[in-house]
């Protein structure tokens, strides 16, 4: 049994009906969901942006609120993808037994993991786009280069959904996710240049910070949203892709070990 668990994930369009199922459920609660997903980051943005911004004026040559907005949109996508792949996926897998019902049909577990990953990424991108619209309203990000932002938000969602599904696969109960949020995601936010430049950190911490996926997403999205170009697009895309591929592979293997016993 063990050797079979380690084979590569089977990617197939069979995931589509499962993805559509999640979309259908979401559509019933869409308004509340989007408001919930954008309210929290917008409140933070306005509070810090105007509150702290009045003290800081400019950071790396841009007004603080724009600096913060361009970083926190990545953070929001990360959080939305993680929440969906943890709490929501866990309730479908463990509590509602939705996955069990799916496995009795001509679907494989790999189809379900792929569907959950892409669904979480899609949902995260939807809230990222909603935030982007609000930013346009504030006059932030109105540049042609912003057209490149949505695909990057999707990739960010794909990356964090994949990582979160690893945590989902090993969780015994919802409580476990608190560790992931407080011990992994929260420190990552402070190391990824969302609120302040990474150059403010001690040098040894900077080299660690430069390898984190959220930092890579911020380094890609921020300049585009501010009308410029990323410094090292290939390197940062590579970081996101490596976390995605390794994360998704591990998530698939661990989920197989959990459920195909």
């Amino acid at each position, binding site marked *: *049994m063990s050797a*079979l668990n380690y084979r590569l994930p089977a990617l197939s369009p*069979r995931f589509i*009906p*499962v993805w*559509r*199922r999640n979309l*259908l*459920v979401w559509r*019933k609660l869409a308004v509340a969901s989007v408001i919930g997903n954008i309210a929290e980051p917008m409140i933070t943005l306005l509070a810090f942006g105007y509150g702290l911004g009045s003290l800081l004026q400019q950071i790396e040559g841009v007004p603080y609120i724009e600096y913060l907005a361009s970083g926190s949109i990545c953070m929001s996508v990360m959080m939305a993808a993680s929440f969906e792949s943890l709490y929501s996926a866990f309730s479908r897998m463990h509590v*509602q*037994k*939705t996955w*069990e*019902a*799916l*496995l*009795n*049909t*001509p*679907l*494989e577990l790999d189809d379900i993991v792929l569907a959950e990953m892409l669904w979480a990424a899609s949902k995260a991108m939807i809230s990222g786009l909603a935030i982007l619209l609000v930013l346009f309203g504030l006059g932030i990000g109105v540049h042609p280069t912003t057209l490149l932002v949505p695909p990057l938000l999707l990739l960010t969602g794909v990356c964090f959904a994949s990582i979160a599904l690893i945590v989902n696969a090993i969780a015994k109960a919802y409580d476990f996710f608190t560790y992931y949020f407080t011990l992994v995601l929260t420190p990552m936010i402070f190391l990824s240049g969302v609120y302040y430049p990474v150059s403010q950190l001690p040098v040894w911490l900077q080299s660690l910070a430069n390898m984190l996926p959220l930092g890579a997403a911020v380094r890609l999205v921020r300049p585009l949203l501010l009308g410029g170009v990323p410094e090292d697009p290939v390197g940062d895309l590579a970081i996101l892709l490596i976390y995605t591929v390794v994360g998704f592979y591990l998530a698939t293997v661990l989920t197989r070990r959990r459920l*195909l*016993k």
Partner: protein
Amino acid sequence: MSILTVNHLKKSYGEGADRHVVIDDVSFALKRGECYGLLGPNGAGKTTTLRLCLGLTVPDSGQITLVGYEVPRGARQARMKIGVVPQMDSLDPDFTVEENLLVYGHYFGMQPSQIHARLDWLLEFSNLANKRHARLGELSGGMKRRLTLARALVNDPDLIFMDEPTTGLDPQARHMIWERLKALLATGKTILLTTHFMDEAERLCNRLAVIDHGRMIAEGEPRDLIAQHIEAQVVEVYGDQAIRWAEQARALAKRVEVSGDTVFCYTQHAEPLLQNLSHASGLRYLHRPANLEDLFLKLTGREMRD
């Protein structure tokens, strides 16, 4: 050809000293159109057998052929022709009755038009036509079970796996499920049923197997099995004096078992027992033919299982 064949199936969990055999050399074959029962106490290996047959877990050894496909290799194709009623409710709580069926049909690659063509019949069959647009929260336990049954029929399966389909239902709801299952059998469907309700097995199953500790310990038609393993008549004796009376019973019955304050006497001829009991005071008794429960308890013992 048999619709499901299981040959020398073995499955164990754990390694080394923790190794625990759950399925130990089980073989059986289902004929088309029959209802075949898997009976056994909790933890006997019934659900694991179903999971193995569906290809959801890989056996240590043995062969499974399901609707012409070798499992687990061809399990995905095989499941196209299988319906499953799982033990735990796994309906989608966010959907209406109709949406549950539509969405489930998509998992089989069915087009919306194909599913819609079956929808009326499915709702009619499961007596849920007037609940078509009801949300799940509005359904009773029996209705949810019927919806689970309807969902298992979306793809028009040849063989339906039922894992304890009436556990937790009230008598009315159970009878309705039984009646629906009989209707399915009448249309030529095949059913593989696991249960620990003996009356359910006796009513529905053409043939059944008793499984305990992962081994098949008996197989056959219910009446034959009873005749083969159990004395034809049973006298159950209750009351304060029953345990003391059991001493005399041993001379009159072929086999006597005591469980709590009830004495079970198994015999081919109940007359001597009944005569004795007619003189005894402080005792109540019931004389009945042997049934599947007697067989089950004889084969698997009276101790509690968890």
